[in-house]
């Protein structure tokens, strides 16, 4: 049984079919890629699996546990972490608080602890903080822990998102264009972070990317999505040489 199983997932926005019969099976520790032109439905697939939208049809399960119909926070707690393409950060919170907040589901001290500051709360909050610092270290921004996120440059905000997603201790990580808006130098750093994260936590990763260089280098297998349907699937070489992909996607953009 795969770690994440998605079968025949279909979604309609009103009458518009956004995703059609999407299948993916991800094994533990795999890095998979999802490419496709703008509006192909890549982010919609993320939103469907993570529970932000409900699939009209289809099966989604994580380690055999059904995810369809659950609230996003339940899916997240089950082990599915993600980042957002358009950086959904909390504008009034510090970097450190972002990473602590993603450990919400592991705070078991309850309201009594929150109201009266029990020893259990102190312990769990301290643990969360220590873990947050470790993760910030990992993504290379531990020096910015007490900054407000809005004061950070764009590239560092992406790192905050990464650390935040990792703090949930996910079994599988969804990265929605983790290098969007980054300069080449930051891009290389982010690639290094993704590799390191993958090595250190043995995470499975599903990656949406526009920059083909990143996808081709990192991913074992790549799906190409056009108009909500997978038109090609295979290793980077297979994808690069697939005429359908070249026609729909690669033909228009140079590989950098």
């Amino acid at each position, binding site marked *: 049984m795969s770690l994440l199983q998605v079968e025949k997932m279909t979604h309609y926005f009103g009458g518009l079919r956004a995703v059609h019969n999407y299948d993916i099976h991800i094994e533990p520790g795999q890095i998979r890629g999802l490419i496709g032109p703008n509006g192909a439905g890549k982010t919609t697939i993320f939103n469907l699996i*993570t529970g*932000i939208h409900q699939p009209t049809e289809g099966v989604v399960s994580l380690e055999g546990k059904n995810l369809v119909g659950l*609230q*996003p*926070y339940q899916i*997240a*707690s089950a082990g599915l972490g*993600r980042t*957002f393409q358009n950086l*959904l*950060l*909390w*504008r*009034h*919170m510090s970097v450190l*608080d972002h990473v*602590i*907040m*993603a*450990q*919400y*589901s592991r*705070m078991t*001290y309850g*309201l009594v*602890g*929150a*109201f*009266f*500051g029990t020893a259990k*709360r102190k312990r769990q*909050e301290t643990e*969360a903080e220590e873990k947050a610092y470790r993760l910030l270290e990992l993504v290379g921004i531990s020096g910015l822990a*007490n900054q407000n996120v809005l004061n950070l440059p764009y590239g560092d905000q992406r790192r905050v998102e990464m650390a*935040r*997603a990792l703090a*949930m201790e996910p079994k599988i990580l969804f990265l929605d264009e983790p290098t969007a808006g980054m300069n080449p130098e930051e891009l290389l750093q982010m690639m290094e972070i993704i590799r390191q994260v993958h090595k250190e936590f043995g995470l499975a990763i599903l990656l949406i990317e526009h920059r083909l260089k990143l996808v081709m280098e990192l991913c074992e297998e790549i799906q190409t999505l056009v108009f909500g349907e997978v038109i090609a699937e295979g290793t980077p070489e297979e994808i690069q040489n697939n005429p359908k992909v070249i026609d729909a996607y690669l033909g228009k953009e140079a590989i950098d």
Partner: protein
Amino acid sequence: MEATSSELSAPESGLKSKIGRLFSRVPIIGWLFGALVAVILEQIVGMPLALALGLPKIPVLFGFVTVLKKPMLVPSTMLFVLLIYFLPIVIIARLSLEPANRLAEKLINFSMEGSVLIHLVLLYAILHIWAEVSDYRLLILKFTLIAIMVTVSLNVINGYMGEFSCSHPGFMALGAYTASVFTVSLFVNDSLFGQALLPSFLGPFLFPLGLILGGCVASLGALLVAIPSFKTRGDYLAIISLAFLFIVKSLIENLEFVGGPRGLSSQPDWANLPIVFAWTVACIWIINNFVRSTLGKALNAVRDEETAANAMTVNTRRTKMVAFMFAAFWAGVAGGLFAHVLRYVNPTTFGIQKLAEVLAMVYFGGLNSVYGSIVGAVSLSILGEALRPLELFKWIVIPLLLILVMIFRPTGLIAFKEFNVKKLIRPKQSPGKEV
């Protein structure tokens, strides 16, 4: 981060920075000593001094009222305030700098809780002695403490969670009426509920129970706003909460057994200063604990970006529900205390006027800040009393002030500041070691 304003201005030359340097190292406990001496001094020599200066009596509110009423008395009032409050506080605070810092250090090393307790006892002693001068002062003090509770709790919804809730007076009303019905029906012989059911010596012991009961009823009422908040936010939720306020008010007006529009009176006189003070401290302590926990910070996450909060394992529904019910609980307790301080409530008390008042306190003091709410509640309460001689124009001065604050500091005076008790009471001496 550690730098307070006085520390920042320290390198500047000039008189201001000199004074700043002199006093920036006075710990809170030093100021408390000063204030204690001042109020004791007032107790002992206040009256003769006032008479000697040609004042009819001790100025009740630091002379604000007198100044506005009788401009002729301005110099002597100012002299009184200078002699009784300003000079003693400043001198004692400065003189006790060394021992106070040593004491603060010792206390904090001995036990954090004990140190906080001692500070609170000192603060209570100051307030108690200050309020002993006149019943008017006592009343203002109690109302101010209650206003702090209401403001801090409203800040949980409007500031920390960022919803514009208008239902707070409604929660207060629920608490006020529940607690009143509890005490009046059980312990008072009156026309509405008949004979007392329990001996009155039990009353003061069961009074907290009545307040908690009031808080719980307010919490339950809050569900009516919290559940729609799962799907609706912003303006529509504001209207739902406003409708809730009108519904509560109208409901009470139509409930004959609690006196309908005539109101409910003869509450026993159990809300004395120590009780109100203790509840206020409990309220601030618990709310401050809450908003600094991850469970409490989840409110900020829901406010700033709900989708992200949900995707980062935050149970947003639970968070919203807790926020509304928790804030409503404290509003209910505050309402219960309010009813027992005034010993009379009627539905009109909890209308739009009250709403404007508490909203003003929250937004004046500062959003997302317990500290700000305390400042907002205290300053607007005192200002409201101090400007009383202006009569009608008081209601022009205060709104104008608030408009100015909104224009120049749109989130309020002290917004987004953490209320850290530990930082507040620690010693401020030995800069080489601390900073």
